[in-house]
């Protein structure tokens, strides 16, 4: 039997960047095939070629043994390839039925097409256990269910081969488990699944075979049963990496950040954070676990002074912060520094040269230049030094910020905040879009900072990261803090329940 997909010697360049170098891949029918690799390894490019967003410079694509040319996503759909993007392509105000119909209405009038969609959705629900209220407004569905709608869309269009790009990035652990169950049932029905992810745990849990990409090349394809996460990590990075940085037990010091009854109501009148109370001590990492969008971002921004508190108070090193002083500028002066969640939207200015991004938030510091001016030579020299210490590549302070990889951008942000000796450090998603090698480096730095007595509040949607780094873990759901655990005394299932809003009282 022919493989479902064969990619043979695919080459693709963007300008001087050779994103795919002679990549070959064979995906057997009726299997779940994982593709792993660091950011920029070429996974997304390869899948975009398969789905018709880009055309390869050279190479051949075969589907079920027959060579085909895929020039658009319509060609891909025609060949039975469906894709579920990391960022959903859904129209939120429309219902599930309307979203599935979109682009396949079957004529100027909707009635006939709609009846067909309903029938087909009922069949799919039965075949794959894909149960969903077809008349629900998509925007009101949970993220996990929205993802189901994406999968339904692909299946409705006759997809035999389903590509999922980082599907669990937005899911709770239990939602992720439900997704994996679904993928397994798709596999049993003879569908082929290609799963792109950087989470090795998921690869191990659900795939049959896994291919590893590194710097545009396909470096290995192995049976999942014959490999292990450390081996995959080594293949991805090209050297041995520690997936878990060791840290010693340490008794926390005095409270440095005390948050009391903090509530935030946003401009639209929605309650984003409800009555959050917690303390971070010196020399302690407190992790906040939660699915993205449950109030963690607003909480961080409020503590940093970027948002007005609707209720509650913040104390820093035992001192009340009056609301008149609760702004980013003053908080920095008081020693509360902030590595924001979204470095490209907030932490850096992508269009600036790196040395200008490296003073964001600190452009008023008197040592940066004479009077009202900034001394560029000095800024460049300063950043050059920092780049060496933090191993930023390339070590080019004048290079445009957006030209650095995610990991190196994050190092620039981290260096900027750490080198100013924080007393409290707020850290949001420190390793989002960061490659494994840099993750290890960043984790080491954060632990070193904790050991030096800094109080760290860490927000991350990566549960692994929270569990590795934190001394204490808080969970958030729907803007509320739903639980608190010592990191040593909890596990994923436990946290997963708390993150889903099942509180201790209810349990």
């Amino acid at each position, binding site marked *: 039997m022919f493989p479902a997909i064969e990619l043979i010697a695919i080459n693709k360049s*963007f300008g001087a960047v050779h994103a795919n170098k002679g990549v070959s891949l064979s995906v057997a029918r009726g299997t779940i095939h994982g593709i792993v690799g660091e950011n920029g390894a070429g996974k997304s490019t390869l899948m*975009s070629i398969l789905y018709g967003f880009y055309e390869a410079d050279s190479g051949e694509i075969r589907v079920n043994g027959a060579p085909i040319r895929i020039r658009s996503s319509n060609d891909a759909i025609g060949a039975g390839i469906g894709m579920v993007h990391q960022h959903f392509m859904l129209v939120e105000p429309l219902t599930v039925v309307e979203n599935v119909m979109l682009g396949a209405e079957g004529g100027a009038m909707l009635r006939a097409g709609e009846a067909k969609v309903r029938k087909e959705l009922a069949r799919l629900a039965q075949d794959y256990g894909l149960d969903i209220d077809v008349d629900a407004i998509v925007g009101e569905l949970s993220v996990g269910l929205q993802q189901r709608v994406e999968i339904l869309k692909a299946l409705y269009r006759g997809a035999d081969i389903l590509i999922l790009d980082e599907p669990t990035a937005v899911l709770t652990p239990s939602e992720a488990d439900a997704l994996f169950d679904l993928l397994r049932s798709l596999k049993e029905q003879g569908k082929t699944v290609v799963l792109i992810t950087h989470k090795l745990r998921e690869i191990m849990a659900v795939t049959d075979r896994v291919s590893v990409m590194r710097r545009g090349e396909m470096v290995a394809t192995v049976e999942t049963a014959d490999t292990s996460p450390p081996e995959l990590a080594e293949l991805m990075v090209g050297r041995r990496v520690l997936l878990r940085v060791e840290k010693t037990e340490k008794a926390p010091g005095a409270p440095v950040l005390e948050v009391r009854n903090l509530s935030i109501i946003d401009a639209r009148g929605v309650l984003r954070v409800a009555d959050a109370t917690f303390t971070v001590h010196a020399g302690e990492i407190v992790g906040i676990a939660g699915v993205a969008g449950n109030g963690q971002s607003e909480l961080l921004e409020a503590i940093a002074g970027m948002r007005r508190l609707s209720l509650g108070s913040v104390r820093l090193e035992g001192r009340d912060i009056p609301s008149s002083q609760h702004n980013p500028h003053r908080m*920095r002066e008081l020693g509360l520094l902030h590595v924001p969640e979204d470095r490209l939207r*907030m932490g850096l200015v992508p*269009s600036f040269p790196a040395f200008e991004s490296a003073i*964001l938030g600190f*452009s008023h510091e008197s040592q940066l230049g004479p009077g009202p*001016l*900034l001394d560029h030579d000095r800024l460049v020299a300063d950043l050059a030094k920092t780049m060496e210490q933090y191993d930023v590549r390339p070590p080019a302070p004048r290079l445009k910020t957006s030209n650095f990889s995610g990991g190196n951008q994050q190092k620039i942000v981290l260096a900027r905040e750490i080198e100013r000796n924080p007393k409290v450090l707020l850290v949001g998603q420190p390793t989002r879009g960061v490659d494994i090698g840099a993750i290890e480096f960043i984790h080491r730095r954060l632990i070193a900072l904790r050991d030096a007595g800094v109080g760290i509040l860490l927000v991350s949607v990566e549960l692994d990261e929270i569990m590795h780094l934190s001394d204490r873990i808080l969970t958030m759901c729907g803007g509320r803090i739903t639980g608190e655990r010592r990191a040593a005394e909890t596990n994923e299932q436990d946290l997963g329940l708390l993150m889903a809003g099942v509180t201790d009282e209810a349990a």
Partner: protein
Amino acid sequence: MSAPIEMPKWADTVLVPAISVVAAFLIAGLVVLSIGENPLTATRYLLQGSLGTGEGLGFTLFYATDFIFVGLAVAVAYHAGLFNIGGEGQATLAGLGIALALNNLTFLPGFVLVPAGILAAAAFGAAWAAVPGYLQAKRGSHIVITTIMFNWLASVLIVYLLVNVLREPQSMNPETRTFPGASHIPFMHEAFAWFGITIPTSQLNLTLILALVSAYLIWLLIYRSRLGYAIRVVGANPAAAVYAGISPARIIIIAMVLSGALAGGLAVNELMGYQHRLLLEFTSGYGFVGIAVALMGRAHPMGIILASLLFGILYQGGAELAFEQPNITRDMVVVIGGIIILFAGALDGLFRRLVAYLLSRTKLAGA
């Protein structure tokens, strides 16, 4: 993951605009051809009229002075992420400021009166820009809409004032009396005459030097100062500004105030340097040309100076051309100017993409 447009600085700042201008001239040439005139002759008249004679050059530089000010005005606002369409209105009000200051402070000596007039221009222009700036910063009223409205307000206000208040009783013209002689900014030919050098007579005056100094100071402000840094952060990434503790509202107002003050330079050049009285419509639409100048100059002071020169050549050479070749009317010259604006401003991305593509090809072939 699309291919980013990256190219060397020289290509970005020199090559692409140059290609745009050449393409614009080619298309304009076709237009000239279509009305039965020889484009080469037309080009010769254009260049000869603007650069070929000392007098022509003087007029070219006079226009360029106007364009540098309004170009800088648009650029400063642009760096803060604002599109200030209100150069016309701001310059008009600056003219009012000049007239009020100069005709009421006649007792002052020249070396005080001239700076007083310039400051009045800057203050009135700034004030007229500050209101839309405030509305944008605090109320979210879109700056494009409000500055356009303020152009109309300025235009009717000045008509009312010139007809009913500021006009000399015995004069039929809606204009003020002539400013005191001490307040006139010397013409360039006068300034050269002090050193015994004779140059052809033109409207060109010492305001050109003020324009060049302003360009340097704006460069220093935008690219080297803490305030300029804050302005660029707000323009490039408002969320990052909030994170950094920079108040976007404050920066928006500051940028608009600076922008309006710079637009006032147009009034200084036209009124204190040349007309020596306040009259209707002295801005002649140059406030809008500033948008094209800033676009073409990539909002960089050096680029703005070069673009201002080009537009100065077009305005002066175009006038000569219309004079020499009656078939090519002033309207036709406006069409040619429009084509250049279209290519240099709106279609800029077209050539940018093409050049980036060609450069990356040659780089790959070379590698």
